[in-house]
Each structure stands twice: as structure tokens, then as C-alpha cells.
């Protein structure tokens, strides 16, 4: 039995999700099915915290250590917050199949957890596929809306290509080393290892939406129902970053000279292209999508600037946590405003229609821009950029800081529209209590993680130390 313990959160989710398929009328309404989903994820999150680090599990394809526990908990909490926030507005999104909707969401989270806990490449790949397949369907959940189906198809086709890259990278790795375990690369691997690394990076960069593999991001973020976007923007990012850290650090022994160059280019491209493209957007969802590309670029700094100093990697993890709070919050607000709220026009004068939403949204956008009083973003940048400087990556740090100054130009537009422009309609936005709770939690996190970041700083340093343990 103890050998099964590491599987507990994953088993809870996968077995629990079967409940949707056998429950018949019981889980038909939005209320009961969302409550069931919340309960499942809550149990999974609880079990994630309770896992004991063990080495037995390696043989079963999963590994439990403080790194996987941290990311697993982050993914669960993110999923929980996004489901709680959007459960009230899902009804308005005209999603015909609510039971399947929550089933798919739980399946996707389950896949994400497998990605996080995986200790060999095959398990990792299975996790990626489970998480992605469920998401492809979720993106098209709004069957009556063309953009939703388009997003689904686009995500599916591009996702398949990225999976192919990933799979081929894994095959090459197997060819080079003769094992599928995610562990140190033998020094004899040579050229094949480089090619394998490149293929895997391409595959994961697709999932993360890093430039130049970001073409699906704006269309999918915009076309998918906002509730799905909320879920995806956090959970998939967390899982894919966990996979990326694992692949690059545990297997490929970063830093080495050929890989850092590749990652540097990806990071710089993601920051710059993401920010430049976001400048042009009028759709808030597209704006946030491009901003997520840029933000993922910032988080890459931790990998590029890595010099065996856990604090640099820890800064990326810290930033990921604060980013999750901001992005869940921002999309939840958007979802609370209305099922089709997307254009900047829809947010005009929001402060008159719902002061709570407008103020929280302002906090999230200030956090994304790295401005006070949302200190989590600012402290994340302090940590990240000082890490880059400490490793001597001056060029990267300068590009990043100029990018974050540039980003203020478009982050400013959303709060400006909400606070300073007259509303198009006077109708008040009614916010469900669960959305209030979830958005408030995100807002408190965005401010609180900056005002009192010590516990999180300690935690992420421990996480980074595990990753770098050789």
C-alpha cells in the first residue's frame, strides 16, 4: 500500500472523475457538479501536502520530493481557485455539457499532476497528453461559438505537432542513453543528446507558449471560454514549467554552453515579441495571452542565468507563484464581468458597475506591470533580475527590465479604461460569492506575497535546492 501513496492525489482525481460518468442525474446541475469537482480537487490538494518524500516511487514512474510536492500543490490550488471563481459564470457561457466539462477539467489537472510527478520520460509524455487532450476538448466546450471550435482545432493541431517533437526528443534520448529515466545524462551521449534536448525544448516551449512557438496562445486564450482560459493559464503553465525544469536540470545537466544559448534566445524572443504584440491588442483576453508569453519569458531567466546557485532558479519559481495569482485573478474578473466580456469596451467604467472587481483587476494589472502596491510582481522582479545580474547575465537583465518598462504602456490601458472612462451601460455587475472569495484570495496573495514574502522565499529556495541536488 505504501508504494501506492505517491499516487494518492492522482488516483483521487482520476477515480473521482469517473463519478461524473456513473452518477446519472445526481451531478447534472451546475451546482452539484462544480461542488463535486471542488471537493475532489480539495482532497487532492490535501493529499499533495501530505505526501512523504520517498524514493520507492521512482520505480513506478513517479517521484515525490519537495519540488514535485510544491508544484503539485500549486497546480491544485490554482485549479481550485479557478474553478471556484468561474463556477458561477460557467452557466452563462452556454456550455452544453456541464458534467463533461468538469470531468475534463479534473482529467486535465490529473494529467498536469502526472507531468509534475513523473520520474521517467514516458510517464511525463503520458501526463502531457492527458492534460492536453482534455484541454483540447475544453477549449471547444462552447459549441455554439465558432471561435471556441476554432481555438479547439488550432490548439489540437499545433499541440499534436509539439507532442511529436517531444516524443521524438524522448526517442532520441532513449537512443542515446538506453534508458527512459529522467536522470543525469551520460557524458558519452554527445551530439544526439543535443538534438534530443532541442526537440524536447521545442515541445515544451509549445506547451508553455514561449516565442517563437506561441502562435496558438492568443487565439486559444481568446476563443476558449473564459473559465477554461483561467484554468489553463495557471495549471498548464505550472505543469509545463515543472516538466521543463525537470528535463533541463535533472536530465541535461544545465548549465552547459550549448543549451544556455538556446534558452537565452527563447527567453529574449518571448519577452520582446509578447510585449510588442500585446501593445496592439484591444481584446483583453488577447492582451493577457500575449502578456503571458512575455511573462513566461521572464520566468525563463531563472534557467538561463543558472549557475549552480539555487537562488536564481528559486526566483523563477517565486515569480511563477505570483504570476499564477495575478493571471487567475485577472481572468476570473473577466469571467465575472460577463461570459463574453473580452473587448476593452466591456471593461469601460467597471468601477461604477462593480468597484470590487475594478479594484482587484487594477491590483492584478499593477502586479503584472511590477508596480506597487501589488508588491508580489515587484518583489518577483527584484528577485529574478538580481539573480540574473549575480550570474553575470547583464544583457538578459537589461532586455528584461526594458521589456517590463515597455509593458507598462499596455498594462496601463485596462485599469485606465476601468477607472477613468465612463461605462457603456449602467447595469451593475452581480458577482457570485464564490467568485468574490476566489478573487479576493488572489488579490490578497498579489499584495501579501510582496509585503511578507519570507515564507515563500524559504519554500522556493528549498524547491530549487532539490532540483539542483546532484
Amino acid at each position, binding site marked *: 500500500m505504501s508504494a501506492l501513496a505517491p499516487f494518492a492525489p492522482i488516483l483521487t482525481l482520476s477515480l473521482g472523475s469517473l463519478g461524473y460518468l456513473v452518477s446519472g442525474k445526481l451531478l447534472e446541475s451546475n451546482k452539484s457538479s462544480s461542488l463535486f469537482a471542488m471537493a475532489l480537487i480539495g482532497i487532492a490538494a490535501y493529499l499533495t501536502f501530505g505526501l512523504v518524500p520517498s524514493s520507492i516511487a521512482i520505480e513506478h514512474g513517479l517521484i515525490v520530493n519537495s519540488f514535485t510536492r510544491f508544484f503539485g500543490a500549486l497546480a491544485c490550488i490554482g485549479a481550485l481557485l479557478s474553478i471556484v471563481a468561474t463556477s458561477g459564470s460557467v452557466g452563462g457561457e452556454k456550455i452544453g455539457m456541464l458534467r463533461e466539462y468538469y470531468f475534463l477539467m479534473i482529467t486535465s489537472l490529473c494529467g498536469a499532476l502526472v507531468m509534475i510527478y513523473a520520474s521517467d520520460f514516458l510517464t511525463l509524455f503520458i501526463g502531457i497528453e492527458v492534460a492536453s487532450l482534455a484541454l483540447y476538448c475544453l477549449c471547444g466546450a462552447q459549441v455554439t461559438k465558432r471561435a471556441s471550435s476554432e481555438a479547439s482545432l488550432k490548439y489540437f493541431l499545433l499541440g499534436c505537432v509539439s507532442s511529436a517533437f517531444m516524443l521524438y526528443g524522448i526517442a532520441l534520448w532513449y537512443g542515446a542513453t538506453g534508458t527512459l529515466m529522467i536522470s543525469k545524462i551520460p557524458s558519452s551521449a554527445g551530439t544526439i543528446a543535443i538534438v534530443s534536448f532541442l526537440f524536447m525544448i521545442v515541445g515544451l516551449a509549445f506547451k508553455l507558449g514561449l516565442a517563437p512557438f506561441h502562435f496558438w496562445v492568443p487565439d486559444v486564450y481568446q476563443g476558449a471560454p473564459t473559465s477554461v482560459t483561467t484554468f489553463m493559464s495557471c495549471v498548464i503553465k505550472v505543469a509545463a514549467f515543472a516538466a521543463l525544469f525537470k528535463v533541463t536540470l535533472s536530465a541535461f545537466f544545465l548549465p552547459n554552453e550549448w543549451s544556455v544559448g538556446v534558452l537565452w534566445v527563447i527567453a529574449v524572443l518571448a519577452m520582446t515579441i509578447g510585449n510588442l504584440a500585446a501593445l496592439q491588442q484591444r481584446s483583453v483576453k488577447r492582451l493577457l495571452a500575449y502578456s503571458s508569453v512575455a511573462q513566461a519569458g521572464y520566468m525563463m531567466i531563472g534557467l538561463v542565468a543558472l549557475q549552480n546557485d539555487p537562488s536564481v532558479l528559486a526566483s523563477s519559481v517565486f515569480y511563477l507563484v505570483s504570476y499564477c495569482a495575478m493571471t487567475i485573478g485577472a481572468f476570473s474578473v473577466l469571467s465575472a464581468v460577463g461570459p463574453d466580456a473580452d473587448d476593452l469596451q466591456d471593461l469601460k467604467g467597471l468601477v461604477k458597475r462593480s468597484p470590487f472587481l475594478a479594484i482587484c483587476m487594477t491590483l492584478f494589472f499593477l502586479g503584472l506591470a511590477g*508596480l506597487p502596491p501589488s508588491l508580489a510582481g515587484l518583489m518577483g522582479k527584484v528577485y529574478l533580475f*538580481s539573480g540574473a545580474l549575480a550570474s553575470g547575465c547583464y544583457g538578459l537583465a537589461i532586455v528584461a527590465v526594458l521589456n517590463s518598462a515597455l509593458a507598462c504602456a499596455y498594462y496601463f490601458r485596462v485599469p485606465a479604461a476601468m477607472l477613468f*472612462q465612463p461605462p457603456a451601460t449602467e447595469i451593475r455587475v452581480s458577482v457570485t460569492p464564490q467568485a468574490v472569495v476566489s478573487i479576493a484570495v488572489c488579490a490578497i496573495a498579489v499584495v501579501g506575497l510582496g509585503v511578507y514574502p519570507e515564507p515563500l522565499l524559504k519554500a522556493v529556495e528549498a524547491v530549487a535546492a532539490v532540483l539542483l541536488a546532484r
Partner: protein
Amino acid sequence: MPIAWPPLSSLIIIPAVGALGCCAPFFSKKMDPNGKLSRLWSIGIAILTLVVLAALARGATIAPGSVLALEEARSWIPSLGISYHLELDGLSFAFCLLTAIISLAVIAWSAKPQSAGAGWYSLLLLGEALVMGAFLATDLVLFYVFFEAMLLPVLGAMALWGGPKRLNAALKFLVYTMAGSALMFLSILYLGWLGNSSAPGVVDAFSFEITNLASKRLLNNSQEMILGIAFLLAFAIKTPIVPFHGWLPDTYREAPHGVAAFTAALLGKVGIYAILRFMWPLFPTFMVEAGPYIAALGAVSVVFGALVAMAQRDIRSLLAYSSISHLGFCVLGLASLSSMAMTGSIFLAFSHGIITAALFLTFGMIIDRQGVRDFDSLGGLAKVVPVSAFFLMVFSVAAVALPLTSSFVGEFLILMGSWKAFPQWTSLALIGVVLGAVYTLTAYLKTMFGGMRASTPALGRDIRGCDAMILTALAAIVVALGVFPGRLLDTISSAVPMQAAGSEVADNNLGQGFVR
């Protein structure tokens, strides 16, 4: 005497709490339709802040010969070496005093934007709290937080109650400032890391404490130059110095009068303050070597600002460009290697803050009442609004630095001090003095005397009551500091040599009794 209550934080906490208090339900539009209650509350808060500041300074200097130096330090984020460290010395005191006075004046000023209620006072108090924080912080990251944050209430007030193109102006202001401070942000982090470089990998040794960083002398000359330029860029944009003033005309044209006064009097001063507070101790070699260039920028700002101001038709644009011109003097003084000129710079910055706020507020009231803002449509106002005309005269002659006004003392000290180091730039700035007199007095004559224009409405309420009291108080400060500058000068100069100690600025001829 042990004080349990955090003494320096209270300067930040009191206005911040006051700002929060403005959101209380009994200040809402329903209970308080004219904003009278919230105005009274905010005036009370602003007065309380001023009193606390005065009491703190008095308490610290009560012993004869003691130098003002109060400190409050507690750890904030030890893992990143960021501390919550505030310090009040003579230099900070001058600017905190200015902040408290100007905030009180702007809050108590009766004319506010039409639709503004408690939110107006809330943002102003918040602005006061954050500017205070910027003037008190000695931890670089803490300073950066305040430096960025103080922009937000100003932007908010501007975007809510500004002119027709207010959103564009606000965006421009934000982007300029962010672009300027981005590289400073990076430089701060680099400094913090260098301070730690003796023990690589130990993050706990990070420190952003200014005295700590300065005493370590971490930088070689080329590093000093790169980081110095990054810092200078941020402060040059904030001040602003030509050619980094692109945001300024739009901001002052579109902002409500109170916000324009607040920005001109306080936000720009943070740049001046920070050059002396942070740049001299951190980059002494750079400041000495780049001194001629910085002085040149200052002198060019003086002349350029004056020339452009002469060409303006809009009163507020004129005030905006005249600010560039006057602050150019301060920059010139800060770059020269003389503690006399530095003291003069701070003194002039103080005096300019008072004068420019008074001018913005008074002209703002006239503009609002007459409904026009360029000189061509105004004239003969001295007959319509004699009291305003009187006050405007006082502040206009103070602005051109007539003897017996505070600006005279400041400009005189700057010119005296910088003459030895940069005679060429000082003479250039002297031309600016003349030009300044020309445009200021022309503007005054055009609007106040001359024939009444057809479009000038004959009816106009003059300044009275509370506003007259405010202007009287400000005028009294300007004249009192012009006649008896000794006390403030001593306070400032007690802190100045310490700032520039690293660069061996030796001519400490601003001893006791120099001014008296």
C-alpha cells in the same frame, strides 16, 4: 527618550490612514455632497502630519548644537536584504517639510475639480504619504517602491479630473517615468548584489542600505559611470532636465490645477533630492567627473526652459517651462563641487516648491473663473481681482529671485558656489536669470494690467477666506526665508557635507554665521 510609537513611520502612516479614512461611508456623495466634511478631515490630517514633523524635528534638535538625525530601521525581507529603513536628517527634513506644507495648501485650497469628492482628498493624502516615504527611505529598494508608487495617485487624480486629453497625458507620464526608472531599478539590484559579492551564493548578505553600500566603495570607475548614468537618467526624467522633459508640458496642461501644483512642487523635487542623497555617496567619482556635463545640462535647462517659456501663450505651459528653468539651477548647483552650491540647490528647490505651487493654484483659480487660459484673452485683471493680483505679484517677484525673497538666497548661493567650478555654465545660467525676469514679468503685466479684453468676463470672485490665508502663509514663508534664511540653511547644510563626503568636497566655507 524612548518612543514606542514608530516616529518616522507616522509621517507616512498618518496621511495614508487619512487617505483610507476618506473612503469611510460618511464621506460618501450622499452624506457629504459638497465634500465639506472630507475636506475638513483631510485638512486635519495634513495639519497633524505637519505638526508631527515639526515636533519630531524639534525633539531631535532640542539640545544645543545637536544635528537633526532620526532613524527607524526594521527588517523587512531579510532573504533579499531589503530593510524598512527611514532616516530624517537635515536634507530629508527640508523636503518633508515642503511636502507637508504643499499638501496642506493643495488640500485646503477651496477650488477643486467639479465632480471631485472625497476621492480627490484621498488621492492627495496618499500622494503625500508616498512622497514622504520617498524622502525618508534610505534603503534603495524601499526608495524605489515609493518612487514608483507616488506616481500612481498623481496619475489617478490626473486621469479622473484632468483636461480633455488627460488619458494620453497620463500614459505619456507613466511611460516616460517607467522607462527612466527601469535601468535605475537594475542598477539598484546590481549594487545590492555587489555589496554581497564577497560571499557568492549567500543571498542573506544582500543589502540595499545606502550608507552600507556607500561605505563599502564597491565600484570601479567604469562601473560607477554606467550605474551613475542609469540613476541620472531616472532622476533627470523625474526632475525634469532638458532634454528629458517630453512628458512635462502635457502633464501640466492636462492635470487639474491642484495636481499640477502637487507635481511641480513635490514630484520633481524627488529627483533633486535623490541626486544628492543617493548619487553623491554612491558614485562620488562619477559625480566629480561628469560634473561639467551635468552642470551643462542644468545650465542649458535654465536657458532652454526660459526661452520656451517666453514663447508660450498658455499660462500653465509657461509655468511648466519656468519650472524646468528653475530646477536647472538646482541641478547646476548639485553638480558643482561646493557644499555651498549644494545647500543653495536644496534651498532653492524648497523655495521653488512653495512659489510654483502658489502660482499654479492662483493662476488656476483665475483660469477657472475666467474660463480662458492664454494671455491674449486675459488682461486688466488687477481691477477685477485685486487680491489675486497682489499675491501673484509677490510670488512672481519671488520667482525671479528678487532680493529678500527665498529664491534669491538659493540662486545666489548656487551661482557663488558654482562659479569657481564652472564659470562658463554659471554665466550661461545668469542669462537665464535675466530671461526669467522677462517672461515672468511680461506674463504678469499682460494678465494683470493693460486694457481689459473684450472676452474677459467682468465678473469674477476674488480670492478670499481660506485661500487668502493659504497664500498669505506661503508668501510669509517665502519672505521670511528670504530675510532670515539661517535656520533652514543650517539644517540643510548640516546634512550636505556628509552626502558628498566621498568626493572630498572640501570648501566647507558655509560655516556658522556665513549667512547671518
